[in-house]
């Protein structure tokens, strides 16, 4: 039983493995154990190729049919997510999703008010005047000034930050228990980013809504998340409460990632790069960080490290943790 | 072509399968004939032999003889040089001029672009044959008129493609980097941008070769450009057409088939090049 799992878990993932191509291809997501508690704000942190987006898509149930999924458990509030009908029912209503690059996630030929209205009609069964009022309320909730005229606007006329607010409005329209935000502010200005994240986290707290924040930016995760999950090459390497991770990272990759983040460094010399590149999955050792790690021992190349509890709520998957 | 079981694709077998093999075979054959046709022709293509006129294919005359007793086989294989030669000169010329115009328009924009684009629009308004007749009327009925007409009518094909591609790449970071290194615009366009355009242009040129051969044959079919007794596929089809009713089918079937196979070969080659040169597969 995973140390981070609790009876109040909203999302439970056990031994989730996703492959592409054939059942013999190396897995892109390699036996993931993961959970999100009700009302919890969790950040999923990793670089490109870590699989964080893929995991989010698996929970949201929007994987491409080409993905070969096996899992011991993949549940949302007790509902099995591998059942397509159940997943469709949850999506948009219980699970809301916000994507990177908001402008391309919105339909360019429909007014934003219509698009929010779609969600309301579908998941809250609102029609006509009630729907229109709800749309305006949704726009006001995401702090868009002058909702009346904005509702009639098309995505192309809105700034990136505004488009993201609209997408958040759509994600929240079904009153979800879980909001998945996949790199919601990448590409947006710093001031806009702050506003968007404040909005998301503010709504999460007000609605007691769980939030899964996917980001490559550790500094951002530090500010907004209660718990951080670090991923590398399709494997979870460490899970810890936020400050515990920064104070006392136990996995060499987490530590290296923190060391590479400019926000944590005092001078350029403090910055630490990470040796090597992402491994070729076909030839990678069981611990996929082994070739880039300075602490590798022979066991790392023979047996995959399991996520072990090293402190309360703090797990790491390493044979030689820091 | 007889039905025969084709071998299964195996490693090393060309990606494009039978089409790719056919492309190389047909183009190769056409080129070989163009190079060596006159040398291997069993008979002088111009030598007439009245008593032997209109004889069907035989061991001596593989494709039979025409209305003047000339060996059709020799005439067919000798024509390859002429038709291929005209097409090659025409395509090479139009490729160079069209690319130059397109590159200038794409890089400079403004008035250069407007003038070139309107010019290309005007050319595209003319059907080939109308243009060819006009050129022939102006410059006289000769091979060079055929070449000029083919060059002109195909200019927009290259000019537009190059214009769009150059314009798109003009703001690419690597072009800016070349400017930062002090390299002048004409060198940038010719040596830095064009190599990136070479693959699609080669595909275009190959497809164009097929059309150019057809154009040359078509124009001479209409008695523009090449005149008898020069052996040329178009003329041979034209002359042979009058003999269909009397049953001397070999007068137009063989030249027609040769024409068809040559054009097919280049068209298929265009597809092969497009697949092979797709940068995502290299």
């Amino acid at each position, binding site marked *: 039983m995973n140390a981070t799992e609790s009876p109040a878990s909203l999302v439970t993932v056990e031994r989730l493995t996703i492959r592409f191509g054939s059942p013999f291809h190396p897995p892109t997501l390699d036996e993931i154990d993961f959970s999100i508690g009700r009302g919890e704000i969790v950040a999923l942190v990793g670089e490109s190729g870590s699989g964080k987006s893929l995991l989010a898509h698996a929970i949201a149930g929007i994987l491409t049919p080409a993905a070969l999924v096996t899992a011991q458990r993949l549940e949302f509030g007790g509902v099995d997510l591998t059942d397509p009908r159940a997943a469709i029912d949850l999506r948009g209503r219980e699970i809301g999703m916000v994507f990177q690059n908001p402008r391309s996630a919105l339909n360019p030929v429909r007014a934003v008010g219509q698009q929010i209205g779609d969600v309301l009609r579908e998941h809250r069964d609102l029609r006509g005047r009630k729907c229109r009022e709800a749309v305006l309320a949704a726009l006001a909730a995401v702090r868009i000034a002058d909702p009346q005229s904005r509702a009639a606007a098309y995505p192309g006329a809105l700034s990136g930050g505004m488009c993201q607010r609209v997408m958040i409005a759509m994600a929240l329209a079904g009153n979800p228990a879980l909001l998945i935000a996949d790199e919601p502010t990448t590409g947006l200005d*710093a001031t806009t980013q702050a506003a968007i994240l404040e909005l998301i986290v503010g709504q999460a707290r007000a609605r007691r809504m769980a939030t899964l924040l996917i980001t490559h930016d550790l500094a951002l995760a530090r500010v907004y998340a209660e718990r951080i999950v670090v991923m590398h090459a399709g494997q979870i390497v460490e899970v810890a409460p936020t400050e515990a991770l920064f104070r006392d990272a136990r996995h060499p990759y987490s530590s290296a990632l923190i060391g590479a983040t400019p926000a944590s460094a005092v001078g350029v010399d403090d910055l630490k790069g990470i040796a090597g590149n992402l491994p070729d999955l076909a030839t990678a050792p069981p611990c996929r960080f082994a070739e880039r790690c300075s602490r590798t021992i022979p066991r790392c190349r023979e047996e995959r490290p399991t996520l072990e509890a090293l402190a309360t709520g703090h797990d790491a998957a390493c044979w030689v943790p820091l | 072509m007889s039905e025969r079981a084709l071998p299964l694709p195996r490693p090393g077998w060309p990606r494009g399968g039978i089409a790719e093999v056919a492309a190389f075979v047909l183009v190769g054959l056409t080129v070989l004939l163009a190079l060596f046709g006159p040398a291997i022709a069993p008979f002088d293509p111009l030598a007439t032999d009245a008593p032997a006129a209109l004889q069907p294919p035989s061991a001596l005359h593989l494709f039979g003889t025409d209305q003047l007793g000339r060996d059709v086989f020799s005439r067919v294989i000798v024509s390859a040089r002429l038709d291929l030669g005209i097409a090659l000169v025409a395509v090479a010329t139009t490729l160079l001029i069209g690319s130059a115009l397109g590159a200038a328009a794409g890089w400079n924009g403004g008035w250069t672009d407007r003038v070139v684009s309107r010019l290309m629009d005007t050319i595209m308004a003319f059907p080939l044959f109308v243009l060819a007749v006009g050129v022939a009327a102006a410059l006289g009925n000769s091979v060079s008129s055929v070449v000029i007409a083919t060059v002109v009518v195909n200019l927009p094909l290259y000019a537009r493609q190059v214009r769009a591609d150059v314009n798109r790449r003009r703001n690419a970071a690597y072009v800016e980097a070349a*400017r930062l*290194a002090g390299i002048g615009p004409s060198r940038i366009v010719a040596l830095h941008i064009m190599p990136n355009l070479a693959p699609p242009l080669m595909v275009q040129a190959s497809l164009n070769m097929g059309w150019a051969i057809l154009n040359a044959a078509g124009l001479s079919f209409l008695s523009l450009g090449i005149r008898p007794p020069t052996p040329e596929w178009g003329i041979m089809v034209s002359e042979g057409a009058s003999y269909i009713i009397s049953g001397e089918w070999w007068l137009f079937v063989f030249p027609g088939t040769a024409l068809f196979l040559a054009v097919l070969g280049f068209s298929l080659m265009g597809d092969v090049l497009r697949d092979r040169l797709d940068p995502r597969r290299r």
Partner: protein
Amino acid sequence: MSALLELVGLRKRFPVGGGRELHAVDGVDLSLAPGDSIGVVGESGSGKSTLARLIVRLIDPNEGLVRFEGRDISAIAAGRFARDPARRAIQLVFQHADDALNPAFSIRRNIAMGLGHTAVSAEASRDVSRIADEVGLSSSLLDRRPHQLSGGQQARAAIARALISNPRLLVLDEPTASLDVSVQAMVLKLIDRVRREHDIGLVFVSHDLDVVRLMCRRIMVLYLGRVAEVGDTAQVLSDPCHPYTRALLAATPGHGTPVVLPGEPASPVDPEPNVCLFHNRCPLAVDRCRIERPLLRTVSGRQVACHRAEETIAPPPAINAPAGY
């Protein structure tokens, strides 16, 4: 000792149809000593990318001067500057390294291009090997094509190309924005090492305050094409004076409670010349801000363009206090 780079009253406008113009750079002054480093920060629409291209003379300013080593190079049109002896002394590192390398050329040829050649002579090849070694690019990669290299390797190759001509001024336009953080760390360390070893002047354009904090001794904050604040990095970031700098700093994760700026930036198209363009979002805006454009003036050791600068400055803190946690 003359300044390496001087910008005086630089302005750049782009027509946007209907006779209107977008003021991308709206009166920027800058001075950089040889071997020094300045970070130019701002959000989208701040004009920082346009400024970078003006400095390296890819585009011409509408008004103002660009002086390089005491010589006015803005008088020469961008097109003709290609033949100027100073051309290769000023180089630019682009944001997207994969776009900065010619896909039809080998890496060797791409790097050699920085010398101004298209063909690679034996001598150029030696220079390429030398610079590739210096930036940590394995020689086995020199004969490959750009798309066969990883993001980090492409970044190194692009930097190698910028350095091969021994530039004295290097402008970097968000060189690490599209890279993973671990790759970014490596590239930043490389740039810093190169700057120190070759005594190159750096103009580092970035949206990331922490990166600029690490890389640059001085910092310039741009807002809608105008300079809001410029000064010593440690000082400006530990104690920002301009309200926009303060907001930008607060918005950077880990630098205090994020303060959400209301409203949207004013339009950069035909902006009013006699107002402070930040006044519609500024918590300190007064009537004067709506009728008079604030000019850069020295306040507490840096330059600020704010009418109320003296009121906002806190008592001087310890200069060496690191920003961040």
